[in-house]
Protein backbone atom coordinates (compact mmCIF):
# COMPACT_ATOMS: atom_id res chain seq x y z
CA UNK A 1 0.00 0.00 0.00
CA UNK A 2 1.07 3.57 -0.58
CA UNK A 3 2.03 5.63 2.41
CA UNK A 4 -0.75 8.15 3.10
CA UNK A 5 1.68 10.79 4.33
CA UNK A 6 3.80 10.49 1.20
CA UNK A 7 0.74 10.63 -1.06
CA UNK A 8 -0.69 13.60 0.81
CA UNK A 9 2.61 15.43 0.49
CA UNK A 10 2.68 14.82 -3.28
CA UNK A 11 -0.95 15.78 -3.94
CA UNK A 12 -0.81 18.96 -1.87
CA UNK A 13 2.57 19.85 -3.36
CA UNK A 14 1.06 19.57 -6.83
CA UNK A 15 -1.68 22.02 -5.83
CA UNK A 16 0.84 24.44 -4.36
CA UNK A 17 3.13 24.30 -7.43
CA UNK A 18 0.21 25.11 -9.74
CA UNK A 19 -0.95 27.98 -7.54
CA UNK A 20 2.60 29.40 -7.40
CA UNK A 21 3.02 28.90 -11.17
CA UNK A 22 6.12 26.74 -10.63
CA UNK A 23 5.47 25.09 -13.98
CA UNK A 24 8.72 23.10 -14.36
CA UNK A 25 8.50 21.65 -10.88
CA UNK A 26 4.84 20.81 -11.49
CA UNK A 27 5.65 18.99 -14.75
CA UNK A 28 8.39 17.04 -12.97
CA UNK A 29 5.77 15.43 -10.76
CA UNK A 30 4.45 13.55 -13.80
CA UNK A 31 5.99 10.49 -15.42
CA UNK A 32 6.93 10.90 -19.06
CA UNK A 33 4.07 8.71 -20.31
CA UNK A 34 1.51 9.99 -17.82
CA UNK A 35 -2.17 10.41 -18.64
CA UNK A 36 -3.93 13.67 -17.79
CA UNK A 37 -7.65 13.23 -18.23
CA UNK A 38 -10.77 15.27 -17.48
CA UNK A 39 -13.80 13.35 -18.83
CA UNK A 40 -16.96 15.07 -20.06
CA UNK A 41 -20.38 14.12 -18.71
CA UNK A 42 -22.68 11.74 -20.60
CA UNK A 43 -25.72 12.74 -18.55
CA UNK A 44 -26.54 14.10 -15.10
CA UNK A 45 -24.89 11.19 -13.29
CA UNK A 46 -22.22 9.63 -15.49
CA UNK A 47 -18.96 10.78 -16.98
CA UNK A 48 -17.54 9.45 -20.24
CA UNK A 49 -15.28 6.45 -19.72
CA UNK A 50 -13.67 5.67 -23.09
CA UNK A 51 -11.57 8.63 -24.24
CA UNK A 52 -11.03 7.17 -27.71
CA UNK A 53 -14.75 6.80 -28.44
CA UNK A 54 -16.28 9.47 -26.22
CA UNK A 55 -15.56 13.12 -25.63
CA UNK A 56 -13.42 14.45 -22.80
CA UNK A 57 -12.77 17.98 -21.63
CA UNK A 58 -9.05 17.18 -21.74
CA UNK A 59 -7.29 13.95 -22.60
CA UNK A 60 -3.51 13.77 -22.93
CA UNK A 61 -1.24 10.80 -22.99
CA UNK A 62 2.34 11.96 -22.52
CA UNK A 63 3.78 14.71 -20.31
CA UNK A 64 4.91 16.59 -23.41
CA UNK A 65 1.27 17.62 -23.95
CA UNK A 66 1.25 19.30 -20.56
CA UNK A 67 4.52 20.98 -21.49
CA UNK A 68 2.74 22.33 -24.59
CA UNK A 69 -0.06 23.66 -22.42
CA UNK A 70 2.40 25.37 -20.10
CA UNK A 71 4.16 26.86 -23.12
CA UNK A 72 0.86 28.20 -24.48
CA UNK A 73 -0.26 29.67 -21.16
CA UNK A 74 3.02 31.55 -20.78
CA UNK A 75 3.73 32.32 -24.45
CA UNK A 76 1.99 35.68 -24.60
CA UNK A 77 0.26 34.34 -27.73
CA UNK A 78 -3.03 33.46 -26.08
CA UNK A 79 -5.33 36.30 -25.07
CA UNK A 80 -7.16 33.91 -22.73
CA UNK A 81 -3.89 33.38 -20.84
CA UNK A 82 -2.40 36.81 -21.32
CA UNK A 83 -3.31 37.80 -17.80
CA UNK A 84 -3.28 34.53 -15.92
CA UNK A 85 -6.03 33.83 -13.46
CA UNK A 86 -5.04 33.61 -9.81
CA UNK A 87 -5.87 30.17 -8.52
CA UNK A 88 -6.04 28.63 -5.08
CA UNK A 89 -6.45 24.84 -5.08
CA UNK A 90 -7.81 23.29 -1.92
CA UNK A 91 -7.33 19.55 -1.81
CA UNK A 92 -8.84 17.41 0.88
CA UNK A 93 -10.37 13.99 1.68
CA UNK A 94 -7.21 12.23 0.51
CA UNK A 95 -7.60 8.46 0.68
CA UNK A 96 -5.25 5.74 -0.49
CA UNK A 97 -7.39 3.33 -2.45
CA UNK A 98 -5.08 0.69 -3.85
CA UNK A 99 -1.46 -0.39 -4.20
CA UNK A 100 -0.76 2.56 -6.53
CA UNK A 101 -3.88 4.70 -6.42
CA UNK A 102 -5.42 7.45 -4.33
CA UNK A 103 -8.37 9.80 -4.49
CA UNK A 104 -8.98 13.34 -3.28
CA UNK A 105 -11.59 16.10 -3.40
CA UNK A 106 -10.62 19.48 -4.80
CA UNK A 107 -11.98 22.97 -5.02
CA UNK A 108 -10.18 25.59 -7.08
CA UNK A 109 -10.97 29.19 -6.32
CA UNK A 110 -10.31 31.28 -9.39
CA UNK A 111 -9.99 35.03 -9.69
CA UNK A 112 -9.60 36.71 -13.07
CA UNK A 113 -7.95 40.10 -12.46
CA UNK A 114 -8.86 41.41 -15.90
CA UNK A 115 -12.61 40.95 -15.36
CA UNK A 116 -12.55 41.19 -11.58
CA UNK A 117 -14.59 38.00 -11.67
CA UNK A 118 -14.37 35.07 -9.31
CA UNK A 119 -15.67 31.55 -9.48
CA UNK A 120 -14.82 28.03 -8.45
CA UNK A 121 -14.31 24.66 -10.07
CA UNK A 122 -14.69 21.56 -7.94
CA UNK A 123 -14.71 17.80 -8.11
CA UNK A 124 -12.56 14.76 -7.51
CA UNK A 125 -9.06 13.69 -8.41
CA UNK A 126 -8.21 10.05 -8.99
CA UNK A 127 -4.48 9.38 -9.11
CA UNK A 128 -2.32 6.50 -10.25
CA UNK A 129 1.28 6.65 -9.07
CA UNK A 130 4.49 5.05 -10.19
CA UNK A 131 7.77 4.84 -8.35
CA UNK A 132 10.70 6.08 -10.43
CA UNK A 133 14.27 6.28 -9.08
CA UNK A 134 12.94 6.14 -5.54
CA UNK A 135 10.48 8.99 -6.14
CA UNK A 136 6.72 8.77 -6.37
CA UNK A 137 5.43 10.27 -9.62
CA UNK A 138 1.99 10.75 -11.11
CA UNK A 139 1.30 8.13 -13.77
CA UNK A 140 -2.30 9.18 -14.32
CA UNK A 141 -4.61 11.85 -13.01
CA UNK A 142 -8.34 11.81 -13.71
CA UNK A 143 -10.25 14.97 -12.87
CA UNK A 144 -13.99 14.59 -12.40
CA UNK A 145 -15.25 18.14 -12.76
CA UNK A 146 -18.60 18.43 -11.00
CA UNK A 147 -19.64 21.93 -12.18
CA UNK A 148 -19.13 21.28 -15.85
CA UNK A 149 -21.03 24.25 -17.30
CA UNK A 150 -17.77 26.07 -17.78
CA UNK A 151 -17.68 29.83 -17.43
CA UNK A 152 -15.62 30.93 -20.46
CA UNK A 153 -12.47 28.95 -19.73
CA UNK A 154 -11.12 26.18 -17.53
CA UNK A 155 -7.44 25.86 -18.34
CA UNK A 156 -5.23 23.02 -17.10
CA UNK A 157 -3.90 25.09 -14.19
CA UNK A 158 -7.38 25.94 -12.90
CA UNK A 159 -8.56 22.37 -12.24
Amino acid at each position, binding site marked *: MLDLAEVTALITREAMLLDRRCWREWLDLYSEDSVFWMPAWLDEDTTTSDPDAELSHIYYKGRHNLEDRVWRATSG*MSVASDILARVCHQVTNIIVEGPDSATAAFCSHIYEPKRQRQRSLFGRYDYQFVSQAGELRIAAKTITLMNDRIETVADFYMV
Partner: protein
Amino acid sequence: MTIENVGALVDDRPSDGWFSVDRAAFTDEALFEREIRHIFEGGWVFLGMDSQAAEKHSYFTVTIGHTPIVVMRDGEGTLGAFVNACPHKGALICHRRTGKGRLHVCRYHSWSFDSAGRNVAVKGMNAGAYSEEFIGRDRNLPRLPAFANYRGFLFGSLVPTCPIEEHLGEARRLLDLSADQGEGGLELVPGEIVFTFDGNWKYQLENCSDAYHFTSAHPSYIRLLDKRAKERRAESVRSIWEKDKNWSEEAEGITGGSYSFDEGHVLNWGLIGVSDAVPLFERAEILAERYGAARRDWMFNMRNLTIFPNLQLAENASSQLRIIRPLAANKTEMRTFCIAPRGESAEARRQRIRNYEDFFNPTGMATPDDTVSYEDCQAGNANRLQSWAYGYCRGATASVTGGNAFSDLLEMNPARSVLGDAMLCDETLYHSYYRAWLARMEAGAARETQDA
Protein backbone atom coordinates in the same frame (compact mmCIF):
# COMPACT_ATOMS: atom_id res chain seq x y z
CA MET B 1 -31.24 54.06 -24.13
CA THR B 2 -34.55 53.11 -25.68
CA ILE B 3 -34.34 51.83 -29.20
CA GLU B 4 -37.48 52.92 -31.04
CA ASN B 5 -36.50 51.86 -34.52
CA VAL B 6 -34.63 48.57 -34.82
CA GLY B 7 -33.98 49.31 -38.49
CA ALA B 8 -31.79 52.23 -37.48
CA LEU B 9 -29.30 49.78 -35.91
CA VAL B 10 -28.23 48.36 -39.28
CA ASP B 11 -26.68 50.71 -41.83
CA ASP B 12 -27.00 48.60 -44.97
CA ARG B 13 -25.71 50.51 -48.00
CA PRO B 14 -23.76 48.09 -50.23
CA SER B 15 -23.88 50.48 -53.18
CA ASP B 16 -21.88 52.94 -51.05
CA GLY B 17 -19.52 50.15 -49.98
CA TRP B 18 -20.66 50.48 -46.39
CA PHE B 19 -22.38 48.17 -43.95
CA SER B 20 -22.41 48.53 -40.20
CA VAL B 21 -24.21 47.46 -37.07
CA ASP B 22 -24.73 49.82 -34.16
CA ARG B 23 -22.86 48.56 -31.10
CA ALA B 24 -26.08 48.90 -29.08
CA ALA B 25 -27.27 45.73 -30.85
CA PHE B 26 -24.77 43.87 -28.66
CA THR B 27 -25.39 45.62 -25.37
CA ASP B 28 -28.97 46.83 -25.06
CA GLU B 29 -31.00 44.76 -22.60
CA ALA B 30 -34.45 45.80 -23.80
CA LEU B 31 -33.41 44.98 -27.35
CA PHE B 32 -32.24 41.59 -26.14
CA GLU B 33 -35.72 40.74 -24.87
CA ARG B 34 -37.08 41.65 -28.29
CA GLU B 35 -34.52 39.33 -29.90
CA ILE B 36 -35.75 36.50 -27.69
CA ARG B 37 -39.38 37.10 -28.68
CA HIS B 38 -38.93 37.86 -32.35
CA ILE B 39 -35.86 35.88 -33.39
CA PHE B 40 -35.70 32.85 -31.11
CA GLU B 41 -39.39 32.53 -30.18
CA GLY B 42 -40.50 33.99 -33.52
CA GLY B 43 -39.37 31.54 -36.18
CA TRP B 44 -37.37 28.43 -37.00
CA VAL B 45 -34.59 27.49 -34.60
CA PHE B 46 -32.46 24.38 -34.34
CA LEU B 47 -33.37 21.97 -31.52
CA GLY B 48 -31.02 19.00 -31.78
CA MET B 49 -30.32 15.81 -33.71
CA ASP B 50 -32.86 13.04 -34.09
CA SER B 51 -30.25 10.64 -32.67
CA GLN B 52 -30.67 12.38 -29.30
CA ALA B 53 -34.06 10.65 -28.99
CA ALA B 54 -33.32 7.53 -31.00
CA GLU B 55 -35.52 4.98 -29.23
CA LYS B 56 -39.27 4.88 -28.74
CA HIS B 57 -40.34 6.88 -25.66
CA SER B 58 -36.97 8.65 -25.38
CA TYR B 59 -36.65 12.41 -25.14
CA PHE B 60 -34.24 15.32 -24.92
CA THR B 61 -34.81 18.77 -23.50
CA VAL B 62 -33.77 22.12 -24.95
CA THR B 63 -34.80 25.77 -24.67
CA ILE B 64 -36.19 28.10 -27.33
CA GLY B 65 -35.70 31.64 -26.11
CA HIS B 66 -37.11 31.47 -22.57
CA THR B 67 -39.38 28.50 -23.34
CA PRO B 68 -38.49 24.99 -22.14
CA ILE B 69 -38.98 22.40 -24.88
CA VAL B 70 -39.03 18.61 -24.90
CA VAL B 71 -38.54 16.60 -28.07
CA MET B 72 -40.02 13.13 -27.60
CA ARG B 73 -40.32 10.01 -29.70
CA ASP B 74 -43.66 8.32 -29.13
CA GLY B 75 -44.61 4.64 -29.11
CA GLU B 76 -45.01 4.62 -32.88
CA GLY B 77 -41.52 6.05 -33.32
CA THR B 78 -42.75 9.49 -34.34
CA LEU B 79 -40.90 12.54 -33.05
CA GLY B 80 -42.82 15.48 -31.62
CA ALA B 81 -41.79 18.74 -29.98
CA PHE B 82 -43.72 20.20 -27.06
CA VAL B 83 -43.50 22.87 -24.44
CA ASN B 84 -41.96 21.06 -21.49
CA ALA B 85 -44.31 22.51 -18.89
CA CYS B 86 -47.37 21.13 -17.19
CA PRO B 87 -50.56 22.91 -18.34
CA HIS B 88 -51.67 22.83 -14.69
CA LYS B 89 -49.10 25.01 -12.90
CA GLY B 90 -46.20 25.15 -15.31
CA ALA B 91 -43.85 22.71 -13.59
CA LEU B 92 -41.29 21.05 -15.84
CA ILE B 93 -42.38 17.58 -16.99
CA CYS B 94 -39.12 16.07 -18.31
CA HIS B 95 -36.23 16.89 -16.02
CA ARG B 96 -33.13 15.49 -17.68
CA ARG B 97 -31.10 16.54 -20.71
CA THR B 98 -31.98 13.16 -22.21
CA GLY B 99 -34.21 10.44 -20.83
CA LYS B 100 -36.83 7.83 -21.50
CA GLY B 101 -40.38 7.16 -20.32
CA ARG B 102 -43.74 5.97 -21.64
CA LEU B 103 -45.52 8.06 -19.06
CA HIS B 104 -44.38 11.36 -17.60
CA VAL B 105 -46.06 12.12 -14.31
CA CYS B 106 -45.76 15.71 -13.17
CA ARG B 107 -43.87 15.66 -9.89
CA TYR B 108 -45.95 18.49 -8.48
CA HIS B 109 -49.63 17.35 -8.75
CA SER B 110 -49.32 14.09 -10.72
CA TRP B 111 -50.96 15.08 -13.99
CA SER B 112 -49.60 12.55 -16.43
CA PHE B 113 -48.64 12.66 -20.10
CA ASP B 114 -47.69 9.99 -22.59
CA SER B 115 -44.72 10.20 -24.93
CA ALA B 116 -46.94 11.81 -27.57
CA GLY B 117 -47.58 14.72 -25.19
CA ARG B 118 -51.19 13.69 -24.49
CA ASN B 119 -52.61 14.32 -21.04
CA VAL B 120 -53.75 10.85 -20.03
CA ALA B 121 -54.78 11.56 -16.45
CA VAL B 122 -55.56 14.36 -14.05
CA LYS B 123 -55.20 13.13 -10.48
CA GLY B 124 -58.62 13.06 -8.79
CA MET B 125 -60.44 14.11 -11.97
CA ASN B 126 -63.84 12.77 -10.92
CA ALA B 127 -63.60 14.00 -7.36
CA GLY B 128 -62.40 17.43 -8.45
CA ALA B 129 -65.79 19.08 -9.04
CA TYR B 130 -64.47 20.41 -12.33
CA SER B 131 -66.69 22.47 -14.62
CA GLU B 132 -67.73 21.36 -18.12
CA GLU B 133 -65.54 24.18 -19.40
CA PHE B 134 -62.45 22.64 -17.78
CA ILE B 135 -63.32 19.07 -18.80
CA GLY B 136 -63.78 20.11 -22.41
CA ARG B 137 -60.39 21.84 -22.67
CA ASP B 138 -57.23 20.52 -24.32
CA ARG B 139 -54.82 19.71 -21.49
CA ASN B 140 -52.08 18.14 -23.64
CA LEU B 141 -48.57 19.51 -23.63
CA PRO B 142 -48.63 22.35 -26.17
CA ARG B 143 -47.28 21.06 -29.45
CA LEU B 144 -44.94 23.38 -31.36
CA PRO B 145 -46.77 24.92 -34.35
CA ALA B 146 -43.85 23.94 -36.56
CA PHE B 147 -41.43 21.02 -36.16
CA ALA B 148 -39.33 19.36 -38.83
CA ASN B 149 -36.61 16.78 -39.28
CA TYR B 150 -34.23 17.63 -42.08
CA ARG B 151 -31.70 14.82 -42.58
CA GLY B 152 -31.53 14.22 -38.83
CA PHE B 153 -31.35 17.93 -37.94
CA LEU B 154 -34.44 18.87 -35.91
CA PHE B 155 -35.93 22.35 -36.10
CA GLY B 156 -38.89 23.87 -34.34
CA SER B 157 -40.79 27.13 -34.16
CA LEU B 158 -43.06 28.62 -31.50
CA VAL B 159 -45.00 30.45 -34.21
CA PRO B 160 -46.53 29.08 -37.43
CA THR B 161 -44.00 29.57 -40.19
CA CYS B 162 -42.86 28.46 -43.64
CA PRO B 163 -41.85 24.86 -44.52
CA ILE B 164 -38.34 23.99 -43.28
CA GLU B 165 -37.08 23.49 -46.85
CA GLU B 166 -38.02 27.08 -47.54
CA HIS B 167 -36.24 28.32 -44.41
CA LEU B 168 -33.06 26.35 -45.15
CA GLY B 169 -33.22 27.26 -48.82
CA GLU B 170 -30.05 26.60 -50.77
CA ALA B 171 -28.06 26.22 -47.54
CA ARG B 172 -29.71 22.81 -47.09
CA ARG B 173 -27.24 21.49 -49.66
CA LEU B 174 -24.51 22.09 -47.09
CA LEU B 175 -26.40 20.06 -44.47
CA ASP B 176 -26.73 17.36 -47.14
CA LEU B 177 -22.97 17.51 -47.68
CA SER B 178 -22.38 16.82 -43.99
CA ALA B 179 -25.11 14.19 -43.64
CA ASP B 180 -23.88 12.27 -46.68
CA GLN B 181 -20.43 11.65 -45.17
CA GLY B 182 -21.46 8.64 -43.07
CA GLU B 183 -23.32 5.43 -43.71
CA GLY B 184 -26.75 6.43 -42.38
CA GLY B 185 -25.85 10.03 -41.66
CA LEU B 186 -24.27 11.67 -38.67
CA GLU B 187 -24.15 10.95 -34.98
CA LEU B 188 -23.14 12.87 -31.89
CA VAL B 189 -20.11 11.48 -30.12
CA PRO B 190 -21.18 10.73 -26.51
CA GLY B 191 -20.34 13.56 -24.10
CA GLU B 192 -21.75 17.08 -24.22
CA ILE B 193 -19.71 20.18 -23.42
CA VAL B 194 -21.54 23.27 -22.19
CA PHE B 195 -19.96 26.63 -21.55
CA THR B 196 -20.93 30.25 -21.19
CA PHE B 197 -19.29 33.55 -21.97
CA ASP B 198 -20.10 37.03 -20.74
CA GLY B 199 -20.91 38.46 -24.12
CA ASN B 200 -23.70 38.85 -26.63
CA TRP B 201 -24.74 35.81 -28.70
CA LYS B 202 -24.03 37.58 -32.00
CA TYR B 203 -20.24 37.48 -31.38
CA GLN B 204 -20.53 33.71 -31.65
CA LEU B 205 -22.70 34.06 -34.72
CA GLU B 206 -20.00 36.15 -36.40
CA ASN B 207 -16.92 34.37 -35.09
CA CYS B 208 -17.85 31.06 -36.72
CA SER B 209 -17.79 32.82 -40.08
CA ASP B 210 -14.74 34.96 -39.32
CA ALA B 211 -11.69 33.96 -41.36
CA TYR B 212 -9.98 37.22 -40.38
CA HIS B 213 -9.39 36.36 -36.71
CA PHE B 214 -7.75 32.97 -37.10
CA THR B 215 -4.07 33.89 -37.34
CA SER B 216 -4.53 36.77 -34.85
CA ALA B 217 -6.48 34.98 -32.15
CA HIS B 218 -4.96 31.51 -32.39
CA PRO B 219 -1.17 31.83 -32.89
CA SER B 220 -0.43 29.65 -29.85
CA TYR B 221 -2.55 26.85 -31.27
CA ILE B 222 -1.04 27.23 -34.74
CA ARG B 223 2.51 27.09 -33.33
CA LEU B 224 1.73 23.92 -31.41
CA LEU B 225 0.27 22.25 -34.50
CA ASP B 226 3.50 23.03 -36.35
CA LYS B 227 5.55 21.67 -33.46
CA ARG B 228 3.54 18.46 -33.29
CA ALA B 229 3.78 17.95 -37.05
CA LYS B 230 7.59 18.16 -36.80
CA GLU B 231 7.79 15.88 -33.74
CA ARG B 232 5.54 13.19 -35.22
CA ARG B 233 5.02 11.36 -31.96
CA ALA B 234 3.31 8.01 -32.31
CA GLU B 235 0.48 8.81 -29.87
CA SER B 236 -0.24 12.28 -31.29
CA VAL B 237 -3.01 12.57 -33.85
CA ARG B 238 -2.52 14.45 -37.10
CA SER B 239 -4.04 17.81 -37.93
CA ILE B 240 -6.12 18.36 -41.04
CA TRP B 241 -4.02 21.48 -41.61
CA GLU B 242 -0.82 19.48 -41.76
CA LYS B 243 -0.70 19.84 -45.55
CA ASP B 244 -3.19 22.52 -46.54
CA LYS B 245 -2.86 25.75 -44.64
CA ASN B 246 -5.62 27.59 -46.42
CA TRP B 247 -5.65 30.23 -43.65
CA SER B 248 -1.92 30.88 -43.80
CA GLU B 249 -0.79 34.32 -44.82
CA GLU B 250 1.73 32.64 -47.13
CA ALA B 251 -0.90 30.61 -48.98
CA GLU B 252 -1.20 31.68 -52.61
CA GLY B 253 -4.05 31.88 -55.09
CA ILE B 254 -7.67 31.06 -54.42
CA THR B 255 -7.90 29.37 -51.01
CA GLY B 256 -11.63 29.64 -50.32
CA GLY B 257 -14.33 32.16 -49.72
CA SER B 258 -17.84 32.66 -48.50
CA TYR B 259 -21.45 32.07 -49.46
CA SER B 260 -24.41 33.99 -48.11
CA PHE B 261 -27.96 32.72 -48.27
CA ASP B 262 -31.40 34.17 -47.71
CA GLU B 263 -32.81 33.77 -44.18
CA GLY B 264 -29.39 34.54 -42.64
CA HIS B 265 -27.47 31.33 -43.32
CA VAL B 266 -23.79 31.68 -44.23
CA LEU B 267 -20.76 29.55 -45.01
CA ASN B 268 -17.10 30.36 -44.98
CA TRP B 269 -14.87 27.72 -46.44
CA GLY B 270 -11.31 26.84 -47.41
CA LEU B 271 -9.79 24.35 -49.81
CA ILE B 272 -8.38 21.21 -48.18
CA GLY B 273 -7.12 18.42 -50.35
CA VAL B 274 -8.27 14.82 -50.09
CA SER B 275 -5.50 14.13 -47.59
CA ASP B 276 -4.83 11.19 -45.30
CA ALA B 277 -4.53 13.73 -42.46
CA VAL B 278 -8.35 14.05 -42.56
CA PRO B 279 -10.34 11.38 -40.64
CA LEU B 280 -12.74 11.09 -43.58
CA PHE B 281 -9.90 9.85 -45.83
CA GLU B 282 -10.85 6.21 -45.20
CA ARG B 283 -14.10 6.91 -47.08
CA ALA B 284 -12.57 9.00 -49.86
CA GLU B 285 -13.04 6.37 -52.57
CA ILE B 286 -16.50 5.22 -51.63
CA LEU B 287 -17.75 8.82 -51.31
CA ALA B 288 -16.35 9.64 -54.77
CA GLU B 289 -18.08 6.59 -56.25
CA ARG B 290 -21.36 7.47 -54.61
CA TYR B 291 -21.48 11.24 -55.02
CA GLY B 292 -18.84 12.04 -57.64
CA ALA B 293 -15.35 13.41 -57.06
CA ALA B 294 -16.48 17.05 -56.92
CA ARG B 295 -18.95 16.53 -54.07
CA ARG B 296 -16.47 14.26 -52.31
CA ASP B 297 -13.79 16.95 -52.55
CA TRP B 298 -16.21 19.45 -50.99
CA MET B 299 -16.66 17.11 -48.01
CA PHE B 300 -12.94 17.46 -47.32
CA ASN B 301 -12.96 21.25 -47.51
CA MET B 302 -12.90 23.30 -44.33
CA ARG B 303 -16.45 24.54 -43.77
CA ASN B 304 -18.05 26.76 -41.15
CA LEU B 305 -21.80 26.84 -41.61
CA THR B 306 -24.37 28.84 -39.69
CA ILE B 307 -28.05 28.05 -40.01
CA PHE B 308 -29.57 31.21 -38.58
CA PRO B 309 -30.07 31.88 -35.78
CA ASN B 310 -28.62 29.20 -33.52
CA LEU B 311 -27.02 26.24 -35.32
CA GLN B 312 -23.37 26.15 -36.31
CA LEU B 313 -21.56 23.27 -37.94
CA ALA B 314 -17.82 23.79 -37.88
CA GLU B 315 -15.87 21.29 -39.93
CA ASN B 316 -12.30 22.48 -39.65
CA ALA B 317 -9.79 21.23 -37.05
CA SER B 318 -12.40 18.57 -36.24
CA SER B 319 -16.18 18.62 -36.50
CA GLN B 320 -18.42 20.48 -34.09
CA LEU B 321 -22.13 21.07 -33.77
CA ARG B 322 -22.94 24.15 -31.69
CA ILE B 323 -26.23 25.43 -30.38
CA ILE B 324 -26.21 29.09 -29.42
CA ARG B 325 -28.47 29.96 -26.49
CA PRO B 326 -28.66 33.64 -25.54
CA LEU B 327 -29.13 34.19 -21.80
CA ALA B 328 -28.84 37.98 -21.56
CA ALA B 329 -27.52 40.83 -23.67
CA ASN B 330 -24.13 40.08 -22.12
CA LYS B 331 -24.34 36.33 -21.49
CA THR B 332 -24.55 33.35 -23.84
CA GLU B 333 -24.59 29.60 -23.34
CA MET B 334 -23.07 27.22 -25.87
CA ARG B 335 -24.09 23.56 -26.05
CA THR B 336 -21.48 21.79 -28.10
CA PHE B 337 -21.03 18.31 -29.49
CA CYS B 338 -18.52 16.46 -31.59
CA ILE B 339 -20.49 15.38 -34.66
CA ALA B 340 -19.18 12.52 -36.75
CA PRO B 341 -20.12 10.22 -39.62
CA ARG B 342 -21.77 7.04 -38.38
CA GLY B 343 -19.68 3.94 -38.80
CA GLU B 344 -16.25 5.56 -39.06
CA SER B 345 -13.27 3.50 -37.91
CA ALA B 346 -12.06 3.60 -34.32
CA GLU B 347 -8.80 5.26 -35.38
CA ALA B 348 -10.55 7.98 -37.41
CA ARG B 349 -12.90 8.61 -34.48
CA ARG B 350 -9.96 8.87 -32.06
CA GLN B 351 -8.25 11.42 -34.31
CA ARG B 352 -11.47 13.42 -34.62
CA ILE B 353 -12.01 13.46 -30.85
CA ARG B 354 -8.42 14.42 -29.96
CA ASN B 355 -8.39 17.31 -32.43
CA TYR B 356 -11.81 18.36 -31.22
CA GLU B 357 -10.78 18.64 -27.58
CA ASP B 358 -7.69 20.69 -28.30
CA PHE B 359 -9.42 23.14 -30.61
CA PHE B 360 -13.06 23.43 -29.59
CA ASN B 361 -13.32 22.87 -25.85
CA PRO B 362 -13.40 25.67 -23.28
CA THR B 363 -10.62 23.62 -21.68
CA GLY B 364 -8.73 23.52 -24.97
CA MET B 365 -6.25 25.72 -26.79
CA ALA B 366 -8.35 27.80 -29.19
CA THR B 367 -11.95 28.44 -28.09
CA PRO B 368 -10.96 30.36 -24.92
CA ASP B 369 -9.04 32.81 -27.11
CA ASP B 370 -12.31 33.42 -28.98
CA THR B 371 -14.65 33.67 -26.01
CA VAL B 372 -12.29 35.93 -24.07
CA SER B 373 -12.18 38.18 -27.13
CA TYR B 374 -16.00 38.27 -27.23
CA GLU B 375 -15.92 39.45 -23.62
CA ASP B 376 -13.39 42.13 -24.57
CA CYS B 377 -15.77 43.24 -27.35
CA GLN B 378 -18.67 43.30 -24.90
CA ALA B 379 -16.69 45.75 -22.77
CA GLY B 380 -15.60 47.85 -25.75
CA ASN B 381 -19.01 47.98 -27.39
CA ALA B 382 -20.35 50.09 -24.53
CA ASN B 383 -18.73 52.83 -26.63
CA ARG B 384 -21.38 55.34 -27.77
CA LEU B 385 -18.85 57.88 -29.04
CA GLN B 386 -18.27 55.72 -32.08
CA SER B 387 -21.45 53.74 -32.28
CA TRP B 388 -20.95 52.16 -35.70
CA ALA B 389 -18.75 49.05 -35.80
CA TYR B 390 -16.18 48.74 -38.60
CA GLY B 391 -16.26 44.95 -38.88
CA TYR B 392 -18.48 44.45 -41.91
CA CYS B 393 -16.50 45.83 -44.83
CA ARG B 394 -13.75 43.42 -45.91
CA GLY B 395 -14.70 41.89 -49.22
CA ALA B 396 -17.04 44.73 -50.22
CA THR B 397 -15.62 44.94 -53.73
CA ALA B 398 -15.26 41.16 -54.09
CA SER B 399 -18.83 40.17 -53.21
CA VAL B 400 -20.92 39.16 -56.22
CA THR B 401 -24.54 38.20 -56.70
CA GLY B 402 -25.11 34.46 -56.95
CA GLY B 403 -22.60 31.64 -56.80
CA ASN B 404 -19.40 30.65 -58.56
CA ALA B 405 -17.64 27.62 -60.02
CA PHE B 406 -17.30 26.02 -56.58
CA SER B 407 -20.97 26.32 -55.61
CA ASP B 408 -21.90 25.04 -59.08
CA LEU B 409 -20.18 21.78 -58.13
CA LEU B 410 -22.83 21.37 -55.43
CA GLU B 411 -25.62 22.66 -57.68
CA MET B 412 -26.07 25.27 -55.00
CA ASN B 413 -27.29 28.81 -55.68
CA PRO B 414 -26.33 31.17 -52.86
CA ALA B 415 -27.61 34.74 -52.75
CA ARG B 416 -24.05 36.10 -52.79
CA SER B 417 -20.52 34.76 -52.90
CA VAL B 418 -16.92 35.80 -52.44
CA LEU B 419 -13.88 33.96 -53.74
CA GLY B 420 -10.43 34.97 -52.67
CA ASP B 421 -6.95 34.31 -51.38
CA ALA B 422 -6.07 33.66 -47.75
CA MET B 423 -5.79 37.34 -46.88
CA LEU B 424 -9.14 38.46 -48.28
CA CYS B 425 -11.05 37.20 -45.22
CA ASP B 426 -14.50 38.30 -46.31
CA GLU B 427 -16.75 40.10 -43.83
CA THR B 428 -19.68 40.76 -46.17
CA LEU B 429 -21.13 37.36 -45.29
CA TYR B 430 -22.25 38.87 -41.95
CA HIS B 431 -24.62 41.14 -43.89
CA SER B 432 -26.80 38.12 -44.39
CA TYR B 433 -27.05 37.62 -40.61
CA TYR B 434 -28.20 41.16 -39.98
CA ARG B 435 -30.63 41.27 -42.87
CA ALA B 436 -32.32 38.14 -41.50
CA TRP B 437 -32.06 39.53 -37.97
CA LEU B 438 -33.81 42.73 -39.04
CA ALA B 439 -36.45 40.86 -41.04
CA ARG B 440 -37.37 38.71 -38.03
CA MET B 441 -37.31 41.67 -35.65
CA GLU B 442 -39.59 43.71 -37.89
CA ALA B 443 -41.93 40.78 -38.62
CA GLY B 444 -42.14 40.07 -34.89
CA ALA B 445 -42.94 43.68 -34.10
CA ALA B 446 -45.63 43.68 -36.79
CA ARG B 447 -47.11 40.48 -35.31
CA GLU B 448 -47.27 42.08 -31.89
CA THR B 449 -48.95 45.21 -33.25
CA GLN B 450 -51.49 43.01 -35.02
CA ASP B 451 -52.19 41.02 -31.85
CA ALA B 452 -52.50 44.13 -29.70
